């Protein structure tokens, strides 16, 4: 079997503070194969966003963070790479879409300037005309009908849904093999969110991009992911193919999470425990979802 695009083994994270170390991740393992869409689902504070930041290498620069464990990207141990090599991967081989599109774009530069900067990471010698042409095409791919107008705009002149599409176009512009999407629809209206997700799914299918999709919204995850990891307080509690996991949730926490999702068909208000001993039950892995062995 081929090497997974991303493989994480026993990843632990703690933050040193005045009152000792706060453990955030207690040794999680996960993998994303080529062209696969994998979701990491959990509540705030469960450690899902920090996982994405570690993969990008952003947290390692934080002096109070203590990271241990293995993160392999296309078979290469990321911690063994030189800082420059690692920085070279960002925005080219792996890219990230953040939750709030409006604050991830720089308000003092036009979209065109920022887009050109992204394209230059992949192809340093790219000319102004060529960059504009490619940016227009990328924006057209995310269903933006007037790419020219959007390129000469500033982020604050565009709607949230439009900004998020710009972010998606930028993230995919250099054809990365791994896309990290951290709650990409949460800041958007429900209708816009549905459109954005549909668009993103179509694009990653076309480009055969691997995606690590981070979300607290199980409905969204069911729409988007092939395989799901459920994370609770820094531990993976359940792992399975999306269809299996939603049809047959086995971990008490996953069950509580599923029951808590509001149903449009009504059905009243569920009785759910806020915190329960059961939520700390050991990991449940569905059939055929074991972590891959050592990479060759």
């Amino acid at each position, binding site marked *: 079997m081929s090497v997974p695009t991303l493989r994480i083994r026993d990843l632990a994270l703690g933050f040193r503070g005045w009152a000792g170390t706060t453990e955030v991740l207690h040794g999680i393992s996960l993998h994303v194969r080529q062209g696969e869409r994998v979701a990491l689902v959990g*509540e705030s504070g469960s450690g899902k966003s920090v996982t994405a930041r570690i993969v990008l290498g952003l947290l390692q620069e934080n002096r109070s963070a203590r990271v241990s464990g293995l993160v392999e990207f296309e078979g290469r141990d990321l911690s063994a790479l030189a800082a420059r090599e690692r920085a070279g991967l960002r925005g080219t081989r792996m890219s990230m879409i953040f939750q709030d599109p409006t604050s991830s774009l720089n308000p003092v530069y036009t979209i065109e300037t920022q887009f050109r900067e992204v394209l230059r990471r992949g192809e340093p010698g790219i000319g102004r005309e060529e960059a504009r042409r490619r940016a227009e095409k990328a924006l057209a791919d995310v269903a933006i009908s007037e790419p020219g107008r959007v390129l000469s705009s500033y982020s604050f002149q565009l709607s949230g849904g439009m900004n998020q599409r710009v972010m998606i176009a930028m993230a995919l512009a250099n054809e990365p093999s791994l896309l990290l999407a951290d709650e990409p629809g949460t800041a958007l209206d*429900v*209708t816009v969110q*549905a459109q954005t997700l549909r668009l993103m799914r179509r694009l990653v299918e076309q480009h055969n991009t691997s995606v690590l999709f981070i979300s607290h919204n199980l409905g969204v995850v069911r729409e988007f992911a092939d395989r799901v990891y459920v994370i609770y307080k820094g531990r993976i509690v359940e792992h399975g193919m999306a269809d299996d996991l939603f049809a047959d949730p086995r971990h008490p926490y996953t069950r509580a999470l599923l029951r808590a999702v509001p*149903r*449009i*068909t009504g059905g*009243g*208000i569920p009785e759910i425990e806020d915190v329960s001993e059961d939520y700390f039950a050991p990991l449940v892995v569905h059939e055929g979802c074991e972590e891959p062995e050592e990479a060759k």
Partner: protein
Amino acid sequence: MTHLLSLRSVSKVFTLGSREVRAVENVSLDVEEGECLAIVGESGSGKSTVANMVLGIYPPSEGEVLLRGEALPARRQLVHRRAIQLVQQNPMSSLNPRRSIGASLRLALDVHGVGERGQRRRRVGELLEEVGLPAGFAARSPAALSGGQRQRVAIAAAIAARPALLIADEPTSALDTIVQARIVSLLDALVREDGMTLLFVTHDIALASGFADRIAVLHEGRLVEEGPAADVLAAPRDACTRTLVAGHIGLDTLPLIGEAAP
């Protein structure tokens, strides 16, 4: 019979420089004693503007707001403010971080002159227990509480003065799914068991369908649909409501995949 709250052809126009924004356009609504009415809409639909006019944060440009048949003045007296209380969206910013939970609740009781002065300390503990928190939380600071616990404190502060109407403006949008379910069931208990009247403002039509008696849908400042929650969900008459229902991504909807791109 008089309604607890009535909005009569209420409009709100904001002036931004030379531009006029009609945030709310000719909205009429009635809320009955002891019911939960959900106001549902996308961002920018005017739902918070409606809530703010009911609260008296700003007066309507046209139309009037009536409480038990009496028109509420543009400048509210303490008695009006006591009657209508608010739970805000973000519990992280709605509590004073420098004040203990007990002091915050005590302030609500003092301002509205609830009960005998000597009884108020005990009342703070009772309020906390009413919202499902231990009375001992009074000594804690907001920083020592989770988002869900803080939202419970915000609810306790809002019900401290025994308001006739409680407005909850997206009270769970900043919270996780499980915590959201717990907060909603607390609000539901206030309505069903204590007879509180609740105006629940949300963008999540599925959440509203779970416990509201009636749903009012706003779109671009206009009231496009109103009716019993079950009817609105089962057979939405308006195109905007249908879009909201169709745009809902949940566990009980058909997958979106395969549909044409926008």
